[in-house]
């Protein structure tokens, strides 16, 4: 039985001193018994909209009705009926699981026998029974998220607002969470799930798709996805570089969007366009084209007017890095212990010149630790980490001159302007005088920084910061690039643009080592290593990994399926 529980009528929110509305003229309905996906890239206005519904912000225009009341005027009544989980889960990290639950139970008036049954139900439901005495700060991302959900569910709200519950959570926990939410919805609750992952939209009963504060689409996601039917296909078994193939394909006007998927290339056509001939793409004689199912992401990119194109101006300007295809990065039995706990245990791998190597794994599995040891930020307890034959932790600074590093969350100097950041990072890598000026000018041209040179990066959108971080990492034309979660949180268009640059650089001979928890990003890698519980549990090409878990039930598994299956196989039997 589905009924409308929340109505948004031309809702707008303009923050004081802001030039642009955070949310503009959004109208939508939210129904019980359904998961409503609030979908959009960073800066789309999702959080503002959720806060408006929770009564934490007042709209500057339009009207909201939640459960028959105004979220602000009727706050006292509505707070009992609204469950809200903010982005950082709203947990007190220095309180234990039970203490957090008790606090929120007291605040929401869940007491006595009702509390006991509620705790039992929620702890069973979230599978946190074993951890009731653990401090919330010591929980993994997935467990924190479940606890946050449990706290939001106290008092049996009729509508549950979840702000980006999937961020920083590995695919396994994400799947469990979805299962839990589906259960709740089946009991008649209305759930609003905000997310930047477009693949999650497909799981929702209905979606509210937003971009830059504006509503793009509201309704059943399949309506959106179906628009793309017949426009998506896969080019398989091609010869030569799949990266060059993608570039050639994206040059064609009829191709709207394209990504690399293991050894294959996935293309999306413009509306009404015919597929390009394979011969024209010089894909080799054995190449075949298979139509594939459309995705919500395709529809999103279509709604924005297509992908960013396949040429990397950046790569064109970079020097080629000559040299034989030899091993340039090598980890040998790399181990890092913090006390008794082995964050990385006997990790061994090697990367050849001109390869993209990905470290893939859930949070806390050890991929960051491994990554930091490789670039010399962390000294291994035992084992070796060598880059171009040198141990970076003890190397002369000369060796580090040949590396580029892009940190998690795109750390730039937020108090320096864009130009000052560029000057600083080029200066640190010893560029000076005319050479420095040309490099900066080229970056400004390639990434179109021109209008923003005097602005500080923290006032700019995340996608822009990511471009800045990339520019700062490659200005000195490094041989090797270290990328730590390089696209987390950025929208799909910026992500494609980023990979176009990386692909272009790799074609010039740059070696790339990347960590990611985005499964579709792993598809860009030549080889990936799956890190779990401090060790590598599987390694190979993306296609190999997917193939290794293929079964009769799932003959064509996705990267995410492979991930979940492989982790499951390595889970200790007794849990």
């Amino acid at each position, binding site marked *: 039985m589905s009924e409308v529980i929340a109505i948004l009528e031309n809702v707008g929110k303009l923050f*004081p001193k802001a030039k642009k509305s955070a949310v503009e003229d959004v109208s939508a309905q939210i129904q019980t018994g359904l998961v409503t996906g609030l979908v959009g890239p960073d800066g789309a206005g999702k959080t503002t909209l959720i806060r408006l519904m929770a009564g934490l912000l007042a709209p500057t225009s339009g009207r909201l009705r939640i459960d028959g009341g105004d979220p602000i005027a009727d706050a006292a009544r509505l707070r009992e009926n609204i469950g809200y989980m903010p982005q*950082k889960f709203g947990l007190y990290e*220095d309180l234990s699981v039970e203490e957090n639950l008790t606090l929120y139970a007291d605040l929401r008036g869940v007491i006595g026998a009702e509390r006991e049954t509620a705790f039992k139900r929620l702890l069973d439901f979230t599978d946190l029974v074993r951890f009731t005495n653990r401090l919330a700060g010591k929980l993994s991302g997935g467990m924190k998220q479940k606890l946050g959900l449990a706290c939001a569910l106290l008092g049996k709200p009729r509508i549950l607002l979840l702000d980006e519950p999937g961020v920083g959570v590995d695919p396994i926990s994400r799947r469990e969470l979805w299962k839990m939410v589906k259960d709740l919805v089946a009991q008649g609750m209305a759930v609003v799930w905000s997310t930047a992952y477009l693949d999650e939209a497909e799981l929702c009963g209905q979606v509210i798709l937003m971009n830059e504060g504006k509503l793009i689409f509201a309704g059943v996601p399949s309506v959106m996805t179906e628009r793309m039917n017949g426009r998506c296909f896969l080019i398989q078994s091609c010869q030569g570089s799949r990266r060059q193939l993608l570039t050639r394909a994206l040059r064609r006007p009829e191709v709207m969007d394209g990504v690399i998927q293991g050894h294959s290339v996935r293309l999306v056509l413009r509306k009404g366009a015919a597929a390009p001939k394979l011969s024209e793409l010089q894909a080799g004689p054995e190449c075949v084209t298979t139509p594939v199912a459309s995705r919500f992401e395709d529809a999103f990119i279509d709604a924005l007017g297509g992908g960013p194109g396949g040429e990397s101006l950046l790569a064109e300007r970079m020097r080629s890095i000559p040299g034989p295809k030899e091993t340039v990065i090598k980890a040998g039995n790399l181990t890092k212990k913090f006390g008794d706990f082995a964050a990385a245990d006997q990790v061994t791998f090697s990367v050849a010149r001109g390869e993209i190597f990905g470290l893939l794994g859930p949070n806390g599995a050890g991929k960051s630790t491994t990554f930091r040891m490789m670039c010399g930020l962390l000294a291994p307890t035992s084992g070796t980490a060598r880059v171009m034959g040198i141990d970076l932790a003890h190397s002369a600074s000369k060796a580090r001159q040949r590396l580029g590093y892009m940190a998690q969350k795109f750390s730039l100097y937020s108090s320096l302007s864009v130009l000052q950041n560029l000057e600083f990072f080029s200066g640190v890598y010893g560029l000076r005088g005319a050479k420095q000026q040309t490099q900066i000018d080229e970056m400004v041209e390639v990434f179109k920084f021109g209008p923003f040179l005097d602005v500080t990066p923290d006032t700019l959108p995340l996608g822009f910061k990511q471009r800045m971080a990339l520019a700062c990492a490659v200005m000195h034309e490094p041989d090797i690039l270290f990328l730590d979660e390089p696209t987390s949180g950025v929208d799909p268009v910026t992500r494609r643009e980023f990979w176009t640059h990386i692909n272009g650089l790799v074609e010039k001979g740059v070696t790339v080592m990347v960590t990611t928890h985005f499964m579709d990003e792993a598809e860009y890698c030549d080889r990936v290593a799956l890190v779990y519980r401090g060790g590598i549990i599987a390694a190979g090409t993306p296609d190999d990994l997917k193939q290794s878990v293929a079964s009769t039930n799932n003959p064509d598994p996705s990267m995410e399926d492979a991930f979940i299956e492989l982790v499951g196989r390595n889970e200790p039997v007794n849990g």
Partner: protein
Amino acid sequence: MDDSKMNFSGFFRRLVALCRKETRQILRDPSSNLIAFVLPVALLFIYSYGINLDSTSVSIGLVLEDSSREARQFADSFIGSPYMKVVTSLNRAEMEQAIMETTVRGFVVIPEDFARRLQRPTDTAPLLVVTDGTEPNLASFVENYTRGAWQNWLQHRADEHGRKFTTAISLEPRYWFNPSAESRNFIIPGAITVIMTVIGALLTSLVIAREWERGTMEALLATPVTRAELLLSKIIPYYALGIVSLLICVAVAVFALHVPFRGSLWVLLMVSSLFLFSALGFGLLLSTMTRNQFNAAQGALNGAFLPALILSGFIYEIRSMPLIIQAVTYLIPARYFVNAMHTLFMAGNIWSVLLRNMFFLAIASVFFLGLTALKTRRRLE
């Protein structure tokens, strides 16, 4: 009827839950513990031993250019003092160098014709005192001390010659409440004020800002918590913390440092409560307005700590400050607390003094807490 009763029990339930949470957080945070329990005791000892305005062992030079019996007699009475470390020398140049190097704070010269001029009835034998003026208080001390020693010597000499010598008029100092005029007795109660300021303002300036920064405030605001509950849950635990810390300080002051306490404990608790409320109010106000731990801490440092240190009358005499600065001190709650603490510790329950100070502290508390309540929003804007 029934509804209001429900609200009332809900109020208490939520308040107790929030206070319990806050207390757990305080007890689990090492930096709060450090500031609330370790720093006070450490500071009390530093103040007690490090800040001593009573000169006890000043280095002073004595240049004996004259080696007569008279000169040596003076030297003997000069040297035999527990307050001085006397360095004797035969030439002035050496002492001049010492004063330049700050190894002595001053020197006394007994000129070579001292005894001779002393004998001549028409002459006055001068004793030359040179002090290091860069440390004005020590310079005065050296001067006063030398004058004292000189008086004693004259007296002694007169007795010896069988003559009656007395200064016809003398001033006899008497310090009420603090007979031996120990600076520790007024510095320690003052230091407790500074410590209470650190706990009340600096620590609480961080707490609401921290909830904003960590995103927990957002989650709290989405529950049925009211503004009053939110504020009270911050005030009560930190108030308790402040009082516990106060009692520790007073215990250390009285039992370990032997500072007299002549007032009654319940009056002390009352005065301290009023002061703590004003300090808590100031800290919470900063925290609420900035929503940023760093800025709030900066504000607490410049707005509460520094004034408590220099404008409260704790070390520096307020009455001796220029009028405009004296006017500013009236706006600083610490001023009233210092005054009340000095009275309570040394003089006892002198109500006319205490009530005046409590009145102003109460106004400050109402002002800061009221403003905080006004500035507390149930929304994110």
